[in-house]
């Protein structure tokens, strides 16, 4: 094969094999592979074409399904990020409210002590909230 022939063949293959470095060797390999595949099959062209149509049809269905699942995945991911953000926002606000509650309770106990009255406004849920939003390890 001379240089001009190689150029023709290279052009022929290059149009669809952009990512392949087209040397004489890998064109040879590719041609051999195709010819061998053709020689080794006992199926006729019509059967192959029919089978290809089935695969192409399936590919269209799969492409649609892929688009659907990808969109759903994207939606669930963004929803996840948004829910996480909302949760953190409310949790942090509750932390601030619990700090305020601790201060108010302390004032309340002090006032009861000064007025020498029995504390009647201590709720069990106060403790639970303090434990939940201001745990000891913090």
């Amino acid at each position, binding site marked *: *094969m001379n240089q001009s*022939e190689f150029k*023709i*063949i290279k052009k*022929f*293959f290059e*149009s*669809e094999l952009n990512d392949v470095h087209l040397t*004489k060797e890998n064109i*040879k390999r*590719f041609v*051999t*592979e*195709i*010819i*061998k*595949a*053709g*020689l080794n*099959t006992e*199926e006729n*062209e019509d059967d*192959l*074409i029919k089978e*290809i149509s089935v*695969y*192409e049809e399936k*590919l269209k269905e*799969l*492409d649609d*399904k*892929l688009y659907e*699942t*990808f969109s*759903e*995945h994207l939606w*669930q*991911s963004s*929803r*996840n990020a948004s*829910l*996480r953000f*909302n*949760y953190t926002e*409310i949790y942090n*606000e*509750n932390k601030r*409210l619990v700090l305020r*509650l601790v201060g*108010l309770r302390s*004032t*309340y106990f002090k*006032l*009861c002590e*000064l*007025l020498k009255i029995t504390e009647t*406004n201590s709720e069990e*849920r106060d403790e639970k*909230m303090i434990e939940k*939003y201001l745990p000891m390890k913090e």
Partner: protein
Amino acid sequence: MLWELWIMNERSDYETIKKIFALMPNELKQEIEEVSKKKRTEVLEYCKQALTKGMLVKKRETLKEKNELISEKIAEFEKQIKSLKSENDMLLNKIREVEEDNTWLINRTEELERINEVLVKKLKLRGV
């Protein structure tokens, strides 16, 4: 893909096939020549048929692989969606819980503010 190009363009000109034939290893050339009884046009025709069939086989392989890859990707996405949905449900429950706490805390702090104001007034009245 190359085989699609081949089929679509019906590249039947013997000049291209001759060049492709020239690229084949001797062993393969001999195999084709023997089958087609060494007549030049028959050799080229046989070569053309083998190429076309080879292209079709390759196209089928590529489509099959592509379908398998897309199916795998879909399964992977579906698995992740399932996990995300369950995590989102859990987050929604947690949000409901902290929202409920938030309402209670707002009411409770307001209540304590009011009580403390009353107690401070009482204290002032006692002149402490």
